Structure formats: C-alpha cells, structure tokens
C-alpha cells in the first residue's frame, strides 16, 4: 500500500497575529506544521507500522524555508517527501493549491491520501476535498476513525446529526480530525534517519503547470482589509460574601442588564 500525506505550514497557534497596512503581518511569526496535518502524518506512520510493505510520502506546497518542517515530518517516520515550491504560488487560492497537489500526487499512485481537515490559518477547509474531486476519487471529511481493508475503507466522522460511517473504495482522500490518534513526538533515532531521506523538489513547470493559473491574480478572491476582532470591555468582578450571594448578583445582572436569562 502507498500512502501520501498532504502537509502545509501555518503560523504557530500561540502566535498573536498583528496587522500592517490592513493585512495580517506574518513577518515575525514562527511557522509550524498545521496541527490537523500532524494527525494525518501519525495515521500514515501507524498504518505503515501495521501493514508491512506500506510506503509513505509527504507532499507539501511551501517555499524555500519549508525544508525544516518537512524534515521534522520525515523524522516522525514518513519515508520520503515532495516539496512543491515556486514563487508563482504565493497568494494562490486553495483550489489552485489543490491543482498543484493533484499534479504531484497523481504519479505517486497512492491508495490512501491523508490531509488535515483544514489549515488553522485561513480555515478554508477545501484543499483535501478538492484534491479528491480533481483526482476523481472518493473522500471522507473530518475523519475521527479510519479502517482500511483490501481496496476498501470504513471511516467515521462527526456529522451534523451524529456520528457518520462512510464506506467506499480506495483510492480515497481522508481529512483528519483531532482525536483520530495521538501524534508521537520525534525522537533522536527518527531525526538521524530523516537526514538520509529524500526530499524531491518541484516547481510549477516541472509539474507541467502554468504559472498564470496560480497566484493572487488567478485566485478569484482578494483581501480587501483585515482588522482585529472588537476588544471586549470586561473584567467586572461580581461581589458577594458567599458563593450563594455572588451567584444571586450574577443571575440578577444576567437577567436585568445582559438580558440573557
């Protein structure tokens, strides 16, 4: 079995995102592997451990600085990596990113493609699903449990009405939710092994793609402006000698001032 894992970089979730000229200013931000992608990586590594003969490859759309995070992914146990880096990709729509990924993933002949359910930056939530559509294969979104058979799958996800069980045929894309597994930490052995692993670099032209289909100009959506969320005026301490008295004061305020009870 061959497994491809789609990973991307996002600003550290601890980061405060500041604004400059009405746009998010990411110049000082630390970049990490998208947290939801860590679950995809772990699922791939675990599957390979349990199914002898399975090979794994990570595929990332990134830039020249992305190798550090990609090497970390290899240190977790992924066999090799593909890095798609091209200045023309800057500002591309998520659908264009999915097209670049599809061009890189298709020749790999993967049975299973794993990706995080969404990037915790723009939260588009489309890339993995679009990749499935472009490859004309099945997908299941927001997967919390995955069972792989011979050419078939059974996946669980949290739907609107309750837990969904989806069944279908491989190849397929699965977008991973937090909770599907408990990602491991990298260890020294993995870090040493990663140094010997291959990272294949691609540009748009080496994937047979045209730069004109990528970037801000072709994105179809543009940022008009950005602002910080409205500041909350808070910090009013509710007084009272006992828990009972404090709660009585709170309930009165919730009813008469805030009008939510």
């Amino acid at each position: 079995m061959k497994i491809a894992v789609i990973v991307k970089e996002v600003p550290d979730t601890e980061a405060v995102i500041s604004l400059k000229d009405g746009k998010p200013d990411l110049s000082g931000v630390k970049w990490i592997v998208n947290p939801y992608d860590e679950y995809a990586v772990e699922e791939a590594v675990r599957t390979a451990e349990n199914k002898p003969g399975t090979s794994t490859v990570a595929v990332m759309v990134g830039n020249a600085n992305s190798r550090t995070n990609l090497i970390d992914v290899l240190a977790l146990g992924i066999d090799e990596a593909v890095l798609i880096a091209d200045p023309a990709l800057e500002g591309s729509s998520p659908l264009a990113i999915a097209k670049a990924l599809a061009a890189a993933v298709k020749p790999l002949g993967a049975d299973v493609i794993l990706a995080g359910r969404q990037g915790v930056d723009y939260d588009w939530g489309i890339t993995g699903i679009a990749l499935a559509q472009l490859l004309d294969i099945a997908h299941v979104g927001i997967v919390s449990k995955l069972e792989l058979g011979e050419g078939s799958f059974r996946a669980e996800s949290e739907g609107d009405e309750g837990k969904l069980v989806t069944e279908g045929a491989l190849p397929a894309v699965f977008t991973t939710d937090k909770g599907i597994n408990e990602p491991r930490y990298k260890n020294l052995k993995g870090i040493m092994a990663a140094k010997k692993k291959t990272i294949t670099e691609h540009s748009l032209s080496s994937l047979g793609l045209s730069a004109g289909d990528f970037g801000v100009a072709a994105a179809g959506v543009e940022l008009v402006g950005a602002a910080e969320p409205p500041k909350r005026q808070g910090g009013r301490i509710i007084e009272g000698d006992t828990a009972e008295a404090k709660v009585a004061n709170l309930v009165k305020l919730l009813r008469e001032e805030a009008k939510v009870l």
Partner: protein
Amino acid sequence: MTKILIVGEFSNGKLKGSAAELLAAARAIDPAAEIHGALLGAGSGAAAQGFAAYGVATVHALDGSLPSYSSDGFAAALAPALAGYDYVLLQQSFFGRDLGARLAAATGAAWLSDVTAVEAGPVFVKPLYAGKVISRMRFSAAGLKIVTVRPKVFMPASADASASVSVNSLAESQGYKSKVTSVEAKAEGQIDLKEADIIISGGRGVGGPEGFAPLRDFAGAVGAALGASRAAVDSGWIGHSHQVGQTGKTVNPKLYIACGISGAIQHLAGMQTSGVIVAINNNENAPLMKIADYALVGDLFQIVPELQKQILALRAQG
C-alpha cells in the same frame, strides 16, 4: 440579474431553519437577486415545499432511494444544475462544507468559507486564524462563487411569503465512490456547541475528568452545551468534540460560562464573539477574567451547582 442558489438541509422531512439564514445572506449579497433552492437526499422532494414560506419558487431536488449522503454522488448530481448561477450558498456545517468544497472543485468555482457577514459591494467578512483576525474579502473574477455561511450569525429571513414551489428533479449519478452507511444519532438532550444559546465550558481548573460532572449536570438541567479548553481535552479529561477554540470549534452562544479556564489565545479566539461571557476562576488575574463581562472569583465546584439552582428557580417563577 444576480442568480443565487441556496442549498438547504432537512431532517424528519422538514426544511431546517438554516435555510432562512442562507436566504438572509443571499439578500445581503443582492436584495434584488433571483433566489432558488436545492435540497438533496431521500425525501427532499416533499421537504422542498418548505421553501414556499420563503417565497422561493424553484427548487432542485435529488430524491429517490438514496444513501443518506455521498459526497461524490451528491456533488455529481448537483454540479450540472449550477450553470447560470452566480452564487451557491451553503451552511458552514459538516454537510455544507463537505458538499460545497466538492462542488467548487467540480465546477472550478471560487470558494469562500465560514462567512460571518456580508457588506455592500458585496464584501464578505471572514474570520482568519480562528478569529484572531477579521478579514474582509471580495470576489475578483466573474463566474460561479461558492460561499459557506457560519450558523447563527445572520438574522433568519421571516417565513411569511408564499410561493408555489416547482421542483426540478436532479438525476442520480451512476455509482457512488463512497456513501454514508449509518448515522448514529447524538445522545438524547445533547446540544451541539455551534447551535447552543448557552455553553458551559471547563478547563484545567476542573482538575480531572470527574471535575466535569457538575458542568455536565448544569448543561443537562439548563439546556446548555458542554465545552472544554484544549488543556482539558489534551489531558484526556473529555472528548475532542467538546473543544472550543483553534483546533476545536468556534462558537457564538448568547451566554458563555467559562469554569477554571485561564484563557489561552487559542481559546479566546474561538469564543470571543459570544454575547455575554461569564468567567469563574480561583485566580482573578487569569486572562479570561479580564475580558469576561462578569467575573466570579471563587471555587467553581460551589458556584456552578448554585448557579444551576438559581437559574432553575428563576425559570420556575416564569
């Protein structure tokens, strides 16, 4: 004229109220737009009549002996009907996002997810980084645009119109690559975080899995949803489906009660648009205590049961 398709959802044969929010969003894009509906799944033909009260006269329906959902099958059936529309609107639900994303890839449409407001232009408001930044975006090219709308942020359009609904039956696609084979309904009385008017949430301060018991009691008695901070989820005290914030759910209830939550930036990002925030914490210097509308310093294990008692007493008075 702008043509907008709103993809509704239905359960137990009835169109869900989310359609009224999509209709409001559609009218915000263009008050003069021609608005059509779509409904997919077994029984959708009958449920499509629910659009009548909103004055929507044309509804595309995929009805028959269908699986409850098939992302590729439903997308294949609806995609050919999208020609001629400027916008497709869906709810930012599991179904709406899943189908919408697949449709966008199938048609090459521009994609804008999780929109929380529409301004003149139209300009679309979309939170980024789980709400740390509020962006304003617009479409910059002609052609189909697919938008998902965050639940509970648009004032629902009123259901006071009437229309004679004409149903356009969509042809079922041949062969499914995948399909939903079972749906396990949520436990009785369990309220979804994204739908809840009141959320009670616990963090590191609850001390362990058993510390959630009084919060769960409160939620059951008052009709609230149960939330949690990442710290509590990562400690294994409660399931991830309860997590509020970045890498969890973004929520906007009328009342958010945070118990023993210090207020890490990832948590604040996911709940700061709540109507009223109450924080209960031993430590009055916790960041969340500073942004809460009402902060109670004290032992949550005394305060939460007392709050439950007093709210129920208030309701009993009517």
